[in-house]
C-alpha cells in the first residue's frame, strides 16, 4: 500500500469516526416508533396510491354518504354553496371568464380527494367516515364529474389509475420563467 492510499484510508476512518462522534453529541431523545404506532397516524396517500387502505365503494353507495354527510355544505350534486363547488367547471381554466376550480376541472389526482376527505371532512367531524364510505363518496364525486362510469368501483387498485382531466395542467415553478 502506498503512503498516499494509506493516508486516504486513515483520513476516511477519521471522517467516519468524527461523524459518529458528532451524531453521538446529538441529544438523541426521540423514542423509536413501532410500526403499529406509525400506522395509526400515517394517513397520507401519495399520487401513486401508496397508503390507500382496503375497502371500496361505488357512486351509488356514495350518493347516500353524500346526502347524509356532505350536502349541507356542498349542495346537491356538488354544486357548491355555502362551501366549495365540487362538480363542473371543466374547460373553464383558460379564457376570460373566472375559472371554476372543482375536483373535476382542476384537481390533478384522485388520490388527493381520498386523502383530503379522509383527513379533513366532514368539517364538523373529520376522520369519521369508514374506508368504504370514503371510497364511495369519492366515487360519487368523480362520477358526477363524468370521470368514472356509474358502475365503476373505487378501491386501492382502481383509484390511483383514474386519470383526472387536469392531470397535465401543472407546471413546476421556476423563478424568472
Amino acid at each position, binding site marked *: 500500500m502506498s503512503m498516499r492510499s494509506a493516508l486516504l484510508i486513515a483520513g476516511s476512518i477519521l471522517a467516519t469516526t468524527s461523524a459518529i462522534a458528532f451524531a453521538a453529541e446529538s441529544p438523541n431523545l426521540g423514542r423509536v416508533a413501532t410500526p403499529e404506532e406509525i400506522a395509526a397516524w400515517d394517513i397520507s396517500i401519495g399520487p401513486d396510491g401508496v397508503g390507500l387502505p382496503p375497502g371500496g365503494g361505488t357512486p351509488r353507495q356514495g350518493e347516500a354518504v353524500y346526502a347524509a354527510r356532505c350536502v349541507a355544505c356542498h349542495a346537491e350534486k356538488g354544486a357548491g354553496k355555502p362551501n366549495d363547488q365540487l362538480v363542473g367547471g371543466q374547460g373553464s381554466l383558460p379564457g376570460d371568464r373566472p375559472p371554476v376550480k372543482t375536483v373535476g376541472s382542476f384537481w390533478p389526482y384522485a388520490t388527493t380527494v381520498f386523502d383530503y376527505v379522509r383527513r379533513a371532512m366532514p*368539517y364538523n367531524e373529520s376522520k369519521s367516515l369508514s374506508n368504504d364510505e370514503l371510497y364511495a363518496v369519492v366515487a360519487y364525486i368523480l362520477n358526477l364529474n363524468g370521470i368514472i362510469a356509474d358502475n365503476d368501483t373505487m378501491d386501492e387498485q382502481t383509484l390511483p389509475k383514474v386519470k383526472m382531466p387536469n392531470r397535465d395542467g401543472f407546471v413546476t415553478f421556476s423563478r424568472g420563467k
Partner: protein
Amino acid sequence: MRKNGSPVSSDRDPVAGNGLLDRRLFLSAGAAALGSALPSKAEELPIEPWMKLPGSPFVGYGQPSKFESKVARTFASLPGTTGTGAARTPHHLLDGMITPNGVHFERSHSGIPDINPDTHRLLIHGLVKRPLIFTLESLERYPRESCIAFLECGGNGQLLYQKEPAPVGVQAIHGLVSCAEWTGVKLSVLLQEAGVDSAAKWILAEGADAAGMSRSIPLAKAMDDALIALYQNGERVRPSNGYPMRLLLPGYEGNMNVKWLRRIKLTEGPMMTKDETSKYTITLPDGKSLQFVFPQEGKSVITQPSPGLTLKGSGLYEISGLAWSGYGKITEVEVSADGGKSWAPAALQPPVLSKALTRFRIPWRWNGLPAVLQSRATDESGYVQPTREKMIAARGTRTIYHSNAITTWAVSDKGEVKHVYA
C-alpha cells in the same frame, strides 16, 4: 406617521417629485430647525388624577392600554365555521419590524385546536433509518436557535388581482404577513438523528388540527434553515400560531409552515396534497397552473400614511412602511409621491435581516395637494418589485396567490388616503 407642522427651510430641496425629502433629513443637523415650535395658543398643562393617586396593581400577564383597543385583527370565517379563514394584522397601527403576538396574522383550516402539550407528539418517519417520536419535554432539551422571520400567507395581497381597486386599506390588502422572533430546534438535527435515507427528497409535514393540514416540502429546505418553533417573540408559540410547535420555513409561503406540527414523513416525491394542488397554485391566462411556488417574492407597502389615517394639514410627515423578500435581504426601498414618475430612496431601519420584515422611512413635505404614494422594494438577488400592470401582464388575473405588486395610496387635498390603481 409623525407630523411636524413647521415650515421647512428653503435649502431642504425635494429629492423626488411632490415633496419627498432626503432620507437622512431627520438625522441631519438641520433637523432641529424643522422641529422648531409652532406659535400656539397657550394651554394650561393639566394635573391629571394619575399624577396624584397610586396606579393599578400588578397583573400576571400584561395587556395593551385600554386606549389601544382598535389595534386588533380583523377576520372572516368560511360559511358555517367560526375559526376557519384568516385574521389580519393591523399594520397601519403598528411600527417597527416585529409583530406583537396578539395581532400576528392567522390562517386556519379547521379552527384553533386546544392541544395538551403533555400528550402532543411529533413523529418523524418514512424514508429514515429509525422512525422517532418526540415529546415536547424531550425537544426542550435540544439546543435552540432563534430566527427573526416574516411569515406571509400565499394569498396575501390577492385583492390586487381584482379589476377595480378594493376600497380598503393595508390591513385588508396586506394583513396576512407578520414577523416574529421564532425560537426552537433545527429540524435538521432531528432528521439526522432519525437517519435520512438517500432516496428521500421531500418531507410531508402534517398538523394536529382537525383538518390535518399537510404540505410537501423539499428535503433540502428541511435540512437548511427549517426550525421546529417552540417560542414566538420570547413566549410559547400562541395557539393560533401552532402551539405547542410549528414548522418554520423562513421565506416560504405561510401555508407550508405547518402549525400544530405532529408528523413529518420523508418521501421520494411530493404527496400532492390538497393545498399543493387545488390551492396555492398560480393559474395563468392559458389555464396552466404554476405549482410549488415556495418563496414569497420581494414586496413592500407603505403603512403610514395609508387608508384610515388622515393627514392633518400640509407640512412635514414621515412616510413609513414594510418591505420583505423570501429570497433574502431587502437592499433598497424607493418611494414615490407622484404615482411612480419619480422615486427617492428610503432609509432602511436596522436591523435589515434576511427573510424578515424591514422597516423603511422617508421624510415628506406634503403641500396639501393631491398626491399618489407608492413604494418599490429591491432584494439582494436584484429582484425589483413589479408594478401591478407588470404583475398582471405576467400572471393574469386567474389566480389569487403570490401577489407582490406595488400598492398605491392616493392622498386627497383633504388628507384622506384611498387605495387606487396607478
